[in-house]
């Protein structure tokens, strides 16, 4: 694939250089294939082993009254918990995240505060999830004296969601053409109405995509929930009272039990979780693709 071969006036590429070029090409291809091995292996094992218990009972029953070595049981309570916790986390994180992005793009632009916030949003992106859990533990549970609950977990998850939402919304707001804003200002529309009814609707689909990816990201978090939601085997519909369950916690809990029935439940839960996350990813990408220029 060397690019000079067709020029007869010059002597061709020397053998040594050709060999080096080829070796690197092979290495680069191998690197890509290496990445595919774990991906395919993980997906294959999860699908093949997860299907064993991917039955109606799994989705309609909790683990209440299921003995340590019994088969049967399901993840209904965990699915309820995950949905409630993730929704609560979204309710907390999305307004703060989107408004912060609006500040960074529309108001802050180069102010000192905006720079500091932008820097710390980056730092927050790298916050280990367990530290978010420890924070809620130290603040909400130990200091304020509340007990384990789905809401405590939701707070930890919302901390992990915020930076992702801010970044996604910020990118999208930056893409909104300035002409739109100026046209609106020229008509005498106040700034906040311009933002709410011109800028945000224009960026809407992009922001939704970012939010869904953020949700998909926190949905699989286990560590913070372990410290804040704890585990339970019974159905608890209230995220504000008593320990709940969540799908990742369920996987962790079942995987730690040394019998095949539990391991199979763990795989089925893993399959459920991956399907949920992939669906969110897929829908997010579809929305991003369907995105059309706004027309009035």
């Amino acid at each position, binding site marked *: 694939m*060397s*690019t000079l071969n067709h020029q007869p006036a*010059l002597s061709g590429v020397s053998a040594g*250089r050709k060999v*080096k*070029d080829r070796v690197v090409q092979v290495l680069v291809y191998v*690197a890509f294939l*290496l*990445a595919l091995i*774990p*991906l395919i*292996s*993980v997906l294959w*094992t*999860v699908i093949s*082993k997860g299907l064993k218990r991917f039955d109606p009972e799994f989705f309609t029953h909790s683990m209440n009254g299921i003995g340590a070595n019994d088969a049967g049981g399901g993840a209904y309570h965990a699915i309820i918990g995950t949905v409630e916790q993730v929704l609560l986390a979204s309710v907390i994180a999305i*307004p*703060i*995240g989107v*408004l*912060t992005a609006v*500040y960074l793009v529309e108001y*802050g632009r180069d102010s000192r*505060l905006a720079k*500091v*916030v932008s820097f*710390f949003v*980056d*730092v*927050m*992106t*790298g*916050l*280990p999830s*367990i*530290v978010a859990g*420890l*924070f809620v533990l*130290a*603040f909400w549970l130990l*200091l304020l004296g509340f007990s384990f609950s789905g809401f405590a977990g939701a707070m930890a998850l919302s*901390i992990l969601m*915020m930076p992702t939402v*801010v970044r996604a919304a910020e990118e999208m707001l930056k893409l909104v053409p300035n002409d739109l804003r100026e046209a609106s*200002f020229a008509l005498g529309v*106040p700034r*906040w*109405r311009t933002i709410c009814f011109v800028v945000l609707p224009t960026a809407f689909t992009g922001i939704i995509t970012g939010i869904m990816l953020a949700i998909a990201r926190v949905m*699989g978090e*286990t*560590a913070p929930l*372990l*410290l804040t939601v704890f585990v339970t085997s019974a159905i608890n519909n209230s995220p504000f009272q008593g320990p709940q369950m969540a799908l990742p916690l369920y996987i*962790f809990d079942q*995987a730690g039990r040394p019998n095949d029935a539990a*391991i199979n439940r*763990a*795989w089925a839960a*893993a399959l459920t979780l991956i399907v949920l*996350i992939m669906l969110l990813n897929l829908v997010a990408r579809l929305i991003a693709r369907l995105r059309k220029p706004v027309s009035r």
Partner: protein
Amino acid sequence: MTSDTLEQGATGALGGRGRRLGTGRMGDRLFGISTRGSAIVLLLIIAAIAVFLIAKAVPALKADKANFLTSQEWNPDAAEPRFGILQLAFGTLMSSLMALIIATPVAIGIALFIAFYSPRRLASGLGYVVDLLAAVPSVVYGLWGLQFFVPKMASVANFLHDDFGWIPLFGGDSVGGQSLLTAAVVLAIMILPIISSISREVFLQVPQANVEAALALGATRWEVIRMAVLPFGRSGMVSAAMLGLGRALGETIAVAMVLSTAAGISLHILRPGGNTFAANIANTFGMAGNMGRGALIASGLVLFVITLIVNMLARAIVARRKEFV
């Protein structure tokens, strides 16, 4: 909707300092304040994380009868609490650095493949495939690691031990699958997508003129990469690797599930054992009493500080590069 009905909560305390925006109407004031307030709330959360972790860690640290930094014990709930982080710090750094050594070359290879070798039309699709690795939750990696990968690594460990046992790292007796090396490989898989996607972005920013100039001089594809792409992308790759390191340092559940924890520091990376900050928190939290929780929070604080430094350095490198370009 009149302008006054917009009540976006947030801190109302900032009052009169808001800039005179547009017509200076109430709605503008409120909206400006609420966006600014959200930004400040975000900063407060970061500050609160540091403050409350410290507040809960200090009593435990005061009660600690052993040296927190150099002790290898972990008995915070004993009548005489003794705990230290030396072993945790060693296991965390060791597994993360090994993961980095494994992941970085592969990730950069992937980035080069997608940016320069793959067919143009497939590039974004292939990037998406690699990003799928990031979509798999860590608990699923943990389950996969425990059930599928550990037995495989056990035979690898035996092979390395039998044939290369003279290398100190591969020495020691009773090697097995639930070792630091296995944890490092799982971590490497998990940080691959972040390193490769950031490197890929950097590679795509390489000025086309540089690439074409190198081609015009008769460079082969590798020579183009070596002369035009890698020098341009060096700082980007370094910061990508550091962000990956930050991710590996804080990874919890996968490590907690794969590693069989054992006391003591050992350089024999094939032996089951070792422990990390995050895995220790996840594994011992359930049984921890009051002092135990304080001790875990103290160790979490150390992890927080380490990842904070790593991430800040990575961002600083990126920021400096932006000024030059």
